[in-house]
């Protein structure tokens, strides 16, 4: 059963303003406690031994010398964890297979990437633990490896999994393959569509894996006590999902594990997966002491999920006035060492911004000897959209049509049938295109070697299981217990604002708290831009539940029928036409006497939120290119995005600005660099180059609000759309600046310079 709470337009007092966030003071004073800031008495320090090879069979593991080192209290390997059969579950926006989860956290038959865990130790100090790792002897049989997605799809490529036969192909293949899954989304007839086209453009694109780049490395602390109970404090986007996964891989009852989500130092989808947590629990079980495990930055890069690198082929056909008649794409995504990339989602949103009759998207999920990929903010979409928006730009250029105008001629709107299933309700894509076109930055003058590029993005946004509880305290303040982790976007504040609006009290009288897993019913991961949407819906319903109870209380105290009591401006008062007059009671008065009049008042809700609203954005990127070095500078960047309703406008802007700069990093300099030996060469922030403050300008944010009819305040969710368009917007801008199209990301200076020289050599005007 799912829940939808309909949007009502009404005058607002709190929602839409910009109060301070409740977690703010702790964060600016250094008091906020992240996972690595926790310590337990008697704790041991845990460290992980990792594979130095990209692909190898494990012949033997000898931990005896490590176990004998004074100060070492426990060592674990694959022998300490049960094997798992294939079983799927949802985790964030990707699906996981428990057979793979247990192998990723601790290698069993093989190591499949540089950095794959092989053993773990717990010792009295970090230096002893590190020394112990050096004493563990692992015998490897090194195997040939493959890290390129196109290479990995070839029949003679080194094979990662002997049991993996391509899913989605009939008849079922006889030989195993690195192609884990093939999927097809189709509508209409491509042949017909291309026949109608006056112009057909077919292009190929390549992108590299990039990491979410959260500044807080994964950290956790676990205790396992002799009665079989485990407690874990960890930085996670979904403590309930973690609890479920831990229970599975450790073969424990869910009720025996309690997970507390500590303040999170960034996630962006990368903290939806368990890594050290099961190892810490197992070490604690063996050593009978708490075990703290904090990853180094190098470990974060080598062994936690980046997003996929990919090979993308796009073919579009259109009429001479820019109406797209056929759209065809092939997306080949690296999944890393185990199947399950975001290629399905990428396939579903590749062309979704446009109203198309003839579409086909083929998606391939391919295993390669790299770390297992994790979700990264609109997983898969930026990659697919880079290809599609680049071809659309080329189309506009060849037809002599303004790039925004071309998109307007094809834009999806209310009633458009998508090729992956649903029909759109009210959406704001066209509004964002119009606002972008009308923006003064769209007409800002461009100097020499400067150019402008447009690109657009779409994300589904999701709802799912959420629960919430609201307690009215004796002094008339309210405590909201949320289960959706605030991954820093400020959803805590947004929830508190919605509750304050509902109750009719001041924002600072509502205290939002994120409960641990023992406090609430199941809450899905904070991902898919669902935090404010679903969490907000649950909070609003919990507030309405509390209001209902307060109305009943007033009715009883004042001895009037329930229908006579209305709730307005923070008090129960006579309803218009309710038939009874009485002295109103404020929330404070009700709360103060609650104990005497029937007990404390709480509201709660457990829902499966449906009706999330799709989000659309249009980006304008202005760049300047140094033709002699290939350096790209971002001169201006403008985002126009429909968020349904901006509960807290500053936090919505924060999502735009943060997402755009991540996209700019993805476009300009971020990539995983591997040697011929399959070993990662840049596992650190020196050579994995995320943007610094001087690399980017101020971002212009324009918030468009086309309310989502399926949310009480019209919220759509906004966190993911901003990262989707930058790669294409910037590459389109480079074309506009110097007449060179880049189809490989990132657009690092050596690639740009090479493309400039190739174009000059080919006689094109440079």
């Amino acid at each position, binding site marked *: 059963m799912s829940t939808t709470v309909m949007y009502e337009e009404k005058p607002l007092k709190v929602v839409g303003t910009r109060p301070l966030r409740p977690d703010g003071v702790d964060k600016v004073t250094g008091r906020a406690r992240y996972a690595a800031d926790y310590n337990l008495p008697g704790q041991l320090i845990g460290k992980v031994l990792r594979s130095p090879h990209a692909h190898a069979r494990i012949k033997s593991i000898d931990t005896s010398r490590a176990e004998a080192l004074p100060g070492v209290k426990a060592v674990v390997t694959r022998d300490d964890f049960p094997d798992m059969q294939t079983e799927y579950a949802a985790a964030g926006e990707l699906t996981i297979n428990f057979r793979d989860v247990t192998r990723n956290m601790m290698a069993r038959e093989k190591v499949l990437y540089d950095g794959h865990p092989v053993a773990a130790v717990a010792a009295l100090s970090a230096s002893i633990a590190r020394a112990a790792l050096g004493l563990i002897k692992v015998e490897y049989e090194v195997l040939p490896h493959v890290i390129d997605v196109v290479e990995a799809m070839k029949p003679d490529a080194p094979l990662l999994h002997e049991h993996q036969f391509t899913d989605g192909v009939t008849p079922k293949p006889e030989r195993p393959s690195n192609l884990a899954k093939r999927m097809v989304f189709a509508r209409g007839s491509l042949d017909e569509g291309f026949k109608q086209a006056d112009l057909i453009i077919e292009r190929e694109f390549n992108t590299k894996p990039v990491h979410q780049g959260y500044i807080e490395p994964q950290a956790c602390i676990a205790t396992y006590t002799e009665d079989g109970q485990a407690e874990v404090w960890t930085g996670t986007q979904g403590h309930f999902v973690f609890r479920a996964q831990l229970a599975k891989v450790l073969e424990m009852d869910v009720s025996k594990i309690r997970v507390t989500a500590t303040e999170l130092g960034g996630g962006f989808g990368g903290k939806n997966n368990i890594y050290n947590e099961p190892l810490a629990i197992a070490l604690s079980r063996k050593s009978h002491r708490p075990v703290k495990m904090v990853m180094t930055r190098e470990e974060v890069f080598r062994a936690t999920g980046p997003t996929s690198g990919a090979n993308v082929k796009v073919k579009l056909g259109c009429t001479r006035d820019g109406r797209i008649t056929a759209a065809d794409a092939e997306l080949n995504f690296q999944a890393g060492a185990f199947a399950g990339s975001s290629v399905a989602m990428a396939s579903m949103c590749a062309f979704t911004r446009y109203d198309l009759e003839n579409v086909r998207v083929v998606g391939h999920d391919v295993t390669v000897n790299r770390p297992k990929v994790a979700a990264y903010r609109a997983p898969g979409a930026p990659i697919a959209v880079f290809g599609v928006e680049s071809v659309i730009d080329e189309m506009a250029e060849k037809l002599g049509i303004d790039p925004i105008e071309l998109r307007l001629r094809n834009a999806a709107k209310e009633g458009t049938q998508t090729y992956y299933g649903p029909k759109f309700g009210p959406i704001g894509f066209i509004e964002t295109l119009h606002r972008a076109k009308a923006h003064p930055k769209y007409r800002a003058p461009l100097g020499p070697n400067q150019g402008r590029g447009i690109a657009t993005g779409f994300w589904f946004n999701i709802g799912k299981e959420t629960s919430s509880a609201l307690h009215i305290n004796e002094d008339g303040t309210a405590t909201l217990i949320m289960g959706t982790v605030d991954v820093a976007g400020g959803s805590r504040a947004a929830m508190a604002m919605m509750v304050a609006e509902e109750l009719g009290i001041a924002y600072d009288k509502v205290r939002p708290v994120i409960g641990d897993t023992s406090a609430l019913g199941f809450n899905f991961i904070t991902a898919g831009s669902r935090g404010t949407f679903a969490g907000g819906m649950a909070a609003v319903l919990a507030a309405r539940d509390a209001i209902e109870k307060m109305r009943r209380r007033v009715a009883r105290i004042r001895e009037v029928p329930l229908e006579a009591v209305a709730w307005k401006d923070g008090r129960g008062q006579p309803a218009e036409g309710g038939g009874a007059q009485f002295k109103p009671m404020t929330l404070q008065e009700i709360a103060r006497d609650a104990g005497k009049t029937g007990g404390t008042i709480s509201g709660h809700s457990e829902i499966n939120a449906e009706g999330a609203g799709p989000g659309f954005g249009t980006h304008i990127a202005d760049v300047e290119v140094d033709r002699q*070095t290939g*350096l790209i500078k971002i001169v201006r960047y403008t985002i126009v995005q429909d968020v349904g309703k901006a509960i807290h406008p500053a936090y919505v802007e924060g999502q735009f600005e943060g997402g755009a700069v991540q996209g700019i990093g993805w476009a*300009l*300099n971020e990539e995983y660099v591997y040697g011929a030996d399959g070993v990662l060469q*840049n596992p650190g922030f020196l*050579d994995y180059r995320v943007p610094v403050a*001087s690399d980017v300008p101020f971002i212009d944010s324009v918030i468009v609000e086309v309310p989502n009819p399926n949310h009480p305040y019209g919220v759509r969710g906004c966190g993911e759309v901003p990262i989707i368009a930058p790669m294409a917007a910037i590459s389109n801008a480079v074309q506009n600046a110097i007449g060179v199209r880049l189809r490989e990301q990132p657009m690092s200076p*050596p690639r740009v*310079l090479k493309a400039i020289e190739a174009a000059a050599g080919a006689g094109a005007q440079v």
Partner: protein
Amino acid sequence: MIEMRYEAPRTLKAALALLAAANGRAKVFAGGTDLLIQMRSGRVEPELLVDVKGIPEMRSIAEDKGGFRFGAAVTGMELVEHEGLAGMWPGVIDAVKLIGSIQVKGRASVGGNVCNASPAADSVPALVAARAVARIIGPNGKREVPVEEISAGPGRTSLGHGEMVVSFLLPRRPKRSADAYLRFTPRTEMDIAVVGAGVNLTLNAKGVCTRARVSLGAVAERVLLVPEAAAELIGRRVEAQALERLAAAASAACRPIDDKRGTKEFRIKVAGVMARRAAEIAVKRAKGEV
């Protein structure tokens, strides 16, 4: 597991004695911004750290023979903030400013930057172009060595056992002289140089270049002094034609590698571009135009 020791001598003599006794298993510890990273990764495992930051000769900046002598353990920020030195040798300061972040410069030293012997070290091409000379002390006494002779290849120096660099001398500047250093990095800050170019030149009253030195970093196993490039400037006005030939000579002198920071061809091309642009700035400074 050998326990690492730490000593903080207050005199050069004491430091030398500690180094001699450790017989090659000690490391001189100045800013530590390279050393601590190498210790953390296990690349080096010294038994003794000799912290030289308490030795006055290694921390002072003073005028010397019309130029400036600064200690090998002076921090980058102290050099950047020294008006006199920055005024006389702006190119050297351009280079020092580019070492890491402000936090890193709060500790990093030119002595460390030179002796770490990374081919991409930012301060080195500028010092080489400036004709800087290092004062080295050791068991056999004192010697003065041009900076370009200190690196013996990536991660190796020409220093003998128990020797260490105490200070650097930047010479007196003739009139109408100036230097400049530019490097190429993909981000605006925080990167290791993909290519670095230092140019130091002197003009006569007619604006003709009478002396020049051109040095390139990150394009070979050591920082290169490129006399062929300098020769394109000497005896000429530093204008378009001379600059083009300078760029070509700089590119020709490179013998770079492909690595995660840049390809061979990119480095060769951009070395010429950076050398030319650095020369343009140096000329403007020499003419008093900036």
